[in-house]
């Protein structure tokens, strides 16, 4: 895995050219290494930007290669909890790479993916949920995704889970006392109250799970397939929703052969639009394969837009929305009327899609967005439900406790208070270098 008490370095900004590029160092020698890179004399003032110049060889006569701003964040008040220095240079890949190489020459090591965040976790700056949120925040495509991830980073989910765990812990402690001190002559938890207490906890995990589907859609996005007979204007609609002429549009039926995809932001939802070949019987091999792919795309999509002009729609997919295209032409009205050509009705269609998906992108706080969290909350919920059942059937406390303890284990695994090595590696492997 990682070693974590040497000094690591990486480019923190995305690959490619930009106005500014940032190189980040973290570890005990971050400050010393930086001082040997820059022309600035004396130490860096904590959390103050210092304008200086950077030279990248050890040769004393070497010419500086760039003017940079360096900022030192002494431990523990830094992102990782170790000494951190950020070097903001001009955003040329050549310069940034040279800085990184020079830092390595002076004793730093190139960071592994996710290593800055791993250090923050190991130093107790963030818990596991927050670490995962960093990855989500960086990967966010839509503002709503970013908000969900940011909430998680802020600890909203941490607080929700901790609240359930605290109540659970209190209940477990009292039940354990009943078992271990049977001579005390009274119940530490009244039998009637036990079932209610567990029901309350199960209600709280259920509420988290109820928000989970929406949270997951926000985080992972969803797929919408556009299907229909040839030449009904699927590709025009696709381009209209994508806001770009991605798919080739002609009046020749069967123009689209393969699947064409585009990721769009639909009122905050990350949506992958899939344009497909028109559905018809054909003996032509390429088109036949295209039709097959269209059906498969429809089968796995979260929502299928069935585009019709005047013919009967062939119903595909369980969840679908009939869209009548070419509304600019006088046609009888069926389904949602849009005109890909004029753009009329597109807002109605977007609203209809959101309604059909049952994922109001409302501005409340999304909580559970991550598959790992959902699986663990589900495990906790199942255990709580089983414990509630055992309590209602008046089973002895130790059986109720077996499931309550399991629920606790699941909740603690979410925050990383219990975690296996494999789990941590899996989580931290998701980060890209330098974040």
């Amino acid at each position: 895995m990682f070693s974590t008490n040497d000094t690591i370095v990486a480019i923190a900004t995305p690959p490619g050219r930009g106005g500014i590029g940032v190189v980040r160092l973290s570890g005990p020698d971050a400050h010393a290494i930086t001082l040997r890179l820059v022309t600035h004399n004396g130490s860096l003032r904590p959390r103050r930007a210092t304008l200086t110049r950077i030279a990248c060889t050890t040769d004393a006569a070497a010419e500086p290669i760039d003017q940079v701003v360096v900022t030192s964040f002494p431990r523990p008040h830094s992102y990782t909890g170790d000494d951190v220095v950020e070097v903001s240079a001009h955003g040329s890949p050549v310069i940034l790479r040279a800085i990184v190489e020079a830092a390595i020459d002076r004793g730093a090591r190139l960071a592994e993916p996710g290593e800055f965040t791993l250090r923050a976790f190991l130093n107790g700056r963030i818990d596991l949920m927050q670490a995962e949120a960093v990855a989500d925040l960086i990967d966010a495509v839509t503002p709503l995704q970013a908000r969900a991830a940011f909430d998680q980073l802020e600890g909203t989910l941490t607080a929700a889970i901790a609240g359930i765990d605290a109540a659970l812990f209190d209940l477990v402690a009292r039940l354990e006392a009943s078992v271990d001190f049977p001579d005390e002559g009274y119940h530490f938890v009244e039998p009637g109250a036990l079932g209610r207490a567990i029901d309350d906890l199960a209600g709280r995990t259920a509420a988290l799970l109820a928000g989970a589907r929406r949270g997951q859609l926000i985080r992972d996005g969803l797929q919408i397939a556009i299907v229909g007979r040839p030449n009904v204007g699927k590709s025009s609609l696709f381009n209209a929703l994508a806001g770009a002429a991605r798919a080739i549009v002609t009046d020749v039926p069967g123009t689209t052969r393969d699947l064409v995809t585009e990721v769009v932001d639909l009122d905050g939802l990350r949506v992958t639009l899939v344009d497909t070949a028109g559905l018809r019987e054909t003996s032509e091999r390429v088109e036949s394969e295209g039709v097959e792919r269209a059906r498969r795309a429809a089968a796995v999509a979260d929502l299928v837009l069935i585009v019709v002009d005047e013919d009967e729609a062939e119903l595909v997919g369980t969840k679908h929305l009939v869209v009548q295209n070419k509304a600019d032409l006088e046609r009888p009205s069926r389904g949602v009327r849009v005109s890909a050509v004029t753009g009329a009705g597109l807002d109605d269609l977007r609203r209809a899609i959101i309604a059909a998906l049952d994922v109001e992108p409302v501005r409340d706080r999304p909580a559970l967005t991550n598959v790992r969290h959902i699986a663990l909350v589900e495990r906790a919920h199942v255990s709580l439900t089983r414990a509630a059942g055992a309590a209602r059937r008046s089973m002895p406390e130790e059986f109720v406790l077996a499931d309550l303890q399991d629920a606790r284990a699941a909740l603690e695994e979410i925050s990383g208070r219990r975690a296996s090595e494999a789990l941590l590696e899996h989580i931290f492997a998701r980060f890209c270098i330098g974040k």
Partner: protein
Amino acid sequence: MKQHFDVIVIGAGHAGCEAAHAAARLGAHVGLCTLSTDTVAHMPCNPAVGGTAKGHLVREIDAIGGLMGRAIDATGIQFKLLNRSRGPAVWSPRAQADKKMYGRWVKHALDAEANVEWLIGKAGRILVSGERVVGLALEGADEYACEALVMTTGTFLNGLIHIGPDQHAAGRAGEPPSRELAESLKSLGFEWGRLKTGTPPRLDRESIDFDRHADDGTFAVERGDMPPVPFSFLSGAIDRPQIDCYLVHTNDRVRDLVRANIDRSPLFNGQIRGIGPRYCPSLEDKIVRFPDKERHQIFLEPEGVDAREIYVNGFSMSLPRDVQADLVHALPGLEDAVLLRPGYAVEYDFIQPTELTRRLETKRVRGLFLAGQINGTSGYEEAAAQGLVAGINAAHRALGREGFELHRDESYIGILVDDLITKGCLEPYRMFTSRAEHRLLLRIDNADLRLTPRGRDAGLVDNERWDRFCRRRSRFDRNLCVLETTPLRASSGDRVPAAQLLRQPEIRLVDLIAQGVVPHFESEPSSAAIDIASAETTIKYAGYLRRQQAEIERSRKDERRRIPPAFPFERVPGLSREVVQRLNQVRPDTLGQALRIPGVTPAAVAVLASYVGRFTPHPNML
């Protein structure tokens, strides 16, 4: 030339007797050092064995081949199976002992071992050569050579008794403390601390009219189970006459007296610095720390069939003698009771058990083993369990065998040892069932199924016990088969296997047997409750047992993943200085143990795990 023993055991209390017995049984020549053979397996506090989780320990000691279960079955005068209203996983046997008979029984058992030799005297100095134990010097007397030394000093190391303002150096009431031995041990560099425990006053039986107060309801009569469920897998039916105990409650007068005299309590005026057990609070603690509780339970327990002393359970204190007398007289029905001897608090030195390995051998001195209160525990059962582990391993050390370790997922003894060596002690340690991660699997009914094969491997289970165990195990297997194949009529009218009926919570195997509908079910008359519990639990709670078993399998990989003995924690990058310090202090032998060390986070163990796999020790380090 000095007399030579394979193993010397210091102290003949519950830990020392188990250690000496186990080592002798394994073929070691044992010297058992004690001040007097009159106090062998003495019960200086509560004259009882067992209780929640403690009863589990006794069953496990017995299953491995120890003494305690047979001793209490032979001398118990009131038996109870606690938690009987709950499931069999938390049933715990408890029994009042005839204190004198108990000690005599254990003494005879040790006398019967040809390999045990008594060394009467006061242990003084541990003889060490290099980093290895080589012998023991008695105070002002001879030196003895040995390969392994087991120290079970109880409350004797610098023992100091408090009764009100009176303090006197003593190991127990009327016995001198061990000072030289304490200094000898500390000079070896062990981390040590100071704990406190206490005992209640004893009353004269003749001065209390039990019959009258039982009749008029002043005392609630506490009876034992009939028939008693024995502790030992070897015991037959127990038909000794059983005695009654009595329950009274404290009142406002007791509360007011304690409050009025609290500044005379060494526990509250700063005279005592040692830390006492929270789960066994003194009367002062009960009144001061729990002011909202109106009354507290007090049990009156005879110390033997014919004993004169009545033990006042729940009334331990360190107040001056005159206040103790007033407090006793304030209890209902005890207005005229005569105080035979006062309660007291005792402070004593202990060694932080993080100094020990899983075999209870010190890491600093090879061949030196510690067991019982010296390791910060309280309770005869906890002491005996450690004595058993230390005794087996001392013999293995002396005889060059491989050693004996028990784990958390197979026994309460394993949990006890793991907790001690991993977490150390901040207060006297007592076993609870809640300390077990997989409580449903660690039951009193299956202690033999879990541990008798382990005891056989260690060399402590003789042929008689082994044959009996094999019969019992095959009886258990046959019983499961019988229940799976005996057809019974369900309430629906269908005929279904008995096992299927038993999965319904309200159907009890004991009732089916009483109705005569499972005629092929077999049980030993003396342990029918155990045979029934083993079969019924296995069937009725199969889902729970399977889930816990699956958890064990899942965690076993990490739990038992070995950390090499010489592993250099300080060289693992990324571990904070505090974590490295704790790891070096405990020197965990598995990743599972590392994870349980206070202050060591899962993240740190994850980092550790990746290095443990890669580590190959340098030849110089081994």
